[in-house]
């Protein structure tokens, strides 16, 4: 059973990791006017600094932390490269930051999100350096905060934890792309219908495409969460937050 599961996982990942020729879902290089690029970068910076501090603290306190952080980081690397077809006939990709946000809190994922965004901006012409701040803000800050908040909030209820994890990751993912749409709408208000009209247009492009992908991200996160819980119960790892 276990073997089949891992085989299935590898085949699945391989199938999905064959990317098509297309760009990604972050705001493209040069596509935010300079003042907004700077605005989002300045806003993202304190979270990044706080995240680095928290990672430092984590490594000092917890022996498990490095391993689990590696797992959460790997998860972001895999998921943010998987371009998945959606019902709108275009492709987008999950972010993968929900898992880490649940395990470590949101700011730690700001750091990991930044690493992945830098990788894609520098090597893949995907996203960009001028839009890095804005993309960090959506994928590395708001997404993880929403995931973390939902998980924290619903953990206390007697709702099934797998379901809570699913919701946290899926809605965090959706939030990321709503923020992306908002960032673009603020920078490019529609001359006729204004900010709202423009927001609607960008939301149609990003958020609608993203709905099935948010569900996929939620399910994948729930799968890893289930595995972690099993190992936790067996005493293999100790994780406090979940």
């Amino acid at each position, binding site marked *: 059973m276990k073997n089949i*599961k*891992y085989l299935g996982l*590898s085949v*699945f990942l391989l199938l999905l*990791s*064959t*990317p*098509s020729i*297309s*760009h990604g*879902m972050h*705001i*493209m*290089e*040069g*596509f935010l006017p300079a003042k907004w690029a700077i605005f989002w970068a300045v806003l993202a910076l304190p979270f990044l600094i706080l995240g680095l501090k928290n990672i430092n603290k984590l490594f000092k306190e917890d022996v498990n932390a490095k*391993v689990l952080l*590696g*797992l959460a*980081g*790997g*998860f972001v*690397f*895999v998921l943010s*490269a998987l*371009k998945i*077809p959606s019902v*709108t*006939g*275009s*492709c*987008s990709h999950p972010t993968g930051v929900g898992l880490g946000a649940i395990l470590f809190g949101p700011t730690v994922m700001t750091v990991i999100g930044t690493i992945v965004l830098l*990788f894609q*901006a520098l*090597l*893949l*012409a995907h996203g*960009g*350096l001028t839009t890095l701040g804005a993309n960090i803000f959506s994928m590395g800050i708001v997404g993880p905060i929403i995931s973390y908040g939902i998980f924290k909030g619903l953990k206390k209820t007697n709702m099934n934890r797998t379901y809570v994890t699913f919701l946290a990751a899926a809605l965090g993912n959706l939030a990321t792309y709503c923020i992306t749409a908002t960032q*673009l709408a603020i920078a*490019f208000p529609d*001359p006729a219908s204004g900010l709202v009209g*423009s927001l609607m247009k*960008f939301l149609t*492009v*990003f958020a609608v*495409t*993203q709905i*099935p992908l948010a569900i*996929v991200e939620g*399910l*994948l996160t729930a799968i890893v969460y*289930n*595995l972690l819980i*099993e*190992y936790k119960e*067996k*005493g*293999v*790892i100790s994780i406090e937050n979940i």
Partner: protein
Amino acid sequence: MKTSKTNLILFLLIIVIVLVPLIFMGDSEFGGADGEAEGVILDINPDYEPWAEPILEPPSGEIESLLFSVQVAIGAGTIGYILGMFREKKKVVDNR
């Protein structure tokens, strides 16, 4: 329900969600959503000129897919290694 069983069901669900658009919308292009956003931007503001260019653009779709595969390989390798480690640890714990 056993973890492995739950997870198997979740996997099947994912596969269904991914396959549905491919099967029912087979004639779509499945381009990137950000390319479409670019279209919306130019629609709203036709005069907008991107003021920066990517430093390094992959020379072809093949190279781009290579780099994406590398990204996945790094991530999947890490995940596989760590989950494998947990599994071996579990065996040790079980045999105690």
